[in-house]
């Protein structure tokens, strides 16, 4: 049994890696910062005793994705599970004067994610088994002035996963979409909000449990499903005047 975690230096991804390792999976841990990925792999090895291997992964280096997946499977065996945990909100200035920055956000969160999914899905479909988990965001549920570039990329990724799930279901592969609300991570650090914030470890537990139950779309914390339900029903005529 093996799992690959992409974008493993996030606190949630690291906790996810530990959950699967505790189940006895060999773990491949990929990040742009390879030294950091190695630290996380070492932690997984010390805590669980499983084979944990670190490697370089860059979401936007799409040409390399098929070969990377082959390398990973050579190192830890055919993947039973893959978790795409990377994401980048970028640092866009308010007037979006720099499209290159916006494009990078789209490439990391959508194009690169889709590219990796294709590379992983091929093998899983051939083997007729596997779980592919895409970690997205509630920001993808409706476009808002404050983060619509990131939101649109995550939204597109969710739509992509929906289609992939539909296709791969017939091949015995499960695709799960995770939509995260506020979790206490680097992304939300310093954020002032009255909405309860989950710990990364709680988020990882929820993802792990939902994957076992073959959940299609997981909102976490769960009340975000309701919040986004309300936000999605606001008529556009009114919504465009709001500043959410």
């Amino acid at each position: 049994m093996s799992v690959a975690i992409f974008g493993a230096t996030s606190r949630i991804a690291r906790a996810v890696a530990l959950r699967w390792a505790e189940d006895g999976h060999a773990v491949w841990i990929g990040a742009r910062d390879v030294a950091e990925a190695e630290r996380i792999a070492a932690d997984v090895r010390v805590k669980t005793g499983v084979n944990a291997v670190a490697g370089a992964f860059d979401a936007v280096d799409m040409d390399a994705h098929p070969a990377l997946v082959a390398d990973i499977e050579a190192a830890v065996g055919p993947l039973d599970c893959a978790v795409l945990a990377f994401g980048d909100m970028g640092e866009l200035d308010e007037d979006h004067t720099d499209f290159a920055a916006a494009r990078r956000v789209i490439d990391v969160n959508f194009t690169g994610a889709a590219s990796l999914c294709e590379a992983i899905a091929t093998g899983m479909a051939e083997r007729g088994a596997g779980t592919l988990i895409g970690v997205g965001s509630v920001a993808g549920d409706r476009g808002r002035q404050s983060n619509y570039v990131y939101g649109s990329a995550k939204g597109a990724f969710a739509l992509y996963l929906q289609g992939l799930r539909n296709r791969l279901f017939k091949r015995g592969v499960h695709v799960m979409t995770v939509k995260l609300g506020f979790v206490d991570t680097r992304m939300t650090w310093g954020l002032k909000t009255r909405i309860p914030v989950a710990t990364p470890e709680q988020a990882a537990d929820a993802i792990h449990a939902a994957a076992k139950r073959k959940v299609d779309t997981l909102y976490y914390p769960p009340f975000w499903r309701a919040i986004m339900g309300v936000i999605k029903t606001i008529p556009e005529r009114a919504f465009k005047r709001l500043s959410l």
Partner: protein
Amino acid sequence: MTRSQVARPERRAEVFEAFGERDGSGMLAHGLGRSYGDAALLDGGKVVLTRRLDRMLDFDPETGWLRCEAGVSIEDILETFVPRGFFPPVTPGTKFVTVGGALGCDVHGKNHHVDGCWSNHIRNVELLTASGEVVTCDREQEPELFDATVGGMGLTGITLAMDVKLTPIHNPWIAMESVRVENLDHFFEVSAESGGFTHTVSWIDCVKRGQAMGRGIFMRGRHADADEVGHAGALGKLIDVAHPLLAVPLDGPNWLLNNASIRLFNEAYFRKHPKGQKNVLQHYDPFFYPLDVVRDWNKIYGKRGFLQYQLVVPKEGDNAPLRAVLDAITKSGMGSFLAVIKEFGDISNGGLSFPIPGVTLALDFANYGAPLLDLMERLDAIVVEAGGRVYLGKDARVSRATFRRMYPEWEAWKAVRDQWDPSGVFQSDLGRRLGLVGGAA
């Protein structure tokens, strides 16, 4: 109120980023914030929270050596290693401390008389120093820096990682017994005949005077042998008592802890322990961490909070200084709710490490304000006169002059610190108060 800029690195590179943003206002690493005083505070400066740098990097089951980052907590070590037959070599009375904090305060526990402090089980420290250079120091390589860093109250740099030697155990159980102690002399008798126990501590009733001064409950234990527990206690089949069973939801009213209620509690606690218990098997959790079971236990003191005073004085003669301390407390009418007494061993360390050979007494007081501070000044005088000292990890109020008399090694320590940090990058409120950082004062 203390206000600081706070960074919470999750990647090692982010520590260096935070360090790169230093601006002369001072920097300080901060672990789980369990120091009672101002050791982990830095008003107006930059505080680096190390809690998320908590990766375990290597472990050798043959020797017990664990390499881990500074943000790993004692709780993390217990959760990972008790099921595999290892225990932290030393633990303070709470497991909610990081190894970085344990190193900076050179923490001690119930086994000090046998095993010394945290630093006695550390073979090297990886430190981000003021020049921006990462230095790995040990007892051969940069030994002065190593010596200044253990018990250095975080003022020599930001600890990144260390090697700590875990202790092998057979199971999670402690074979312990409790002995009713009638007074201070009796305490020393029991302490002297407890050589067969690796862990000793005694609760003491601070309200009693005269013949009953120092009455209490002496607890002693050791990690249980393999054949002492049945299969139910075998490794891996643990009862999970690691999570708080109770929580104090709100701040208690200020009147909750007064002399009468403390007297009542002490009487009940003393009587609850019959003549003593023999050979009881107790899970390590209640044995080592009785207060961790009640999350936010400190709230019973209400909004005014509490102060702890922990002292050590050399053991000599009829222990007049210790009697003088207890006498001053009872006379003041400000009862100490939790008081703990223990004999230290002969192991002393470098830095500003607290333990010296002698007797330590830890006293919790509700914050009575000025009268309490006056009392503590009086206790300081007794302690200094006896050649003793207070624990910096729990102190927020001792004066610079008094500190220098308690820790005569401060000057040698500061010379090493200044050599590694001449411009005073690393600071803390405690360091400023005691004149440990920046130029000479």
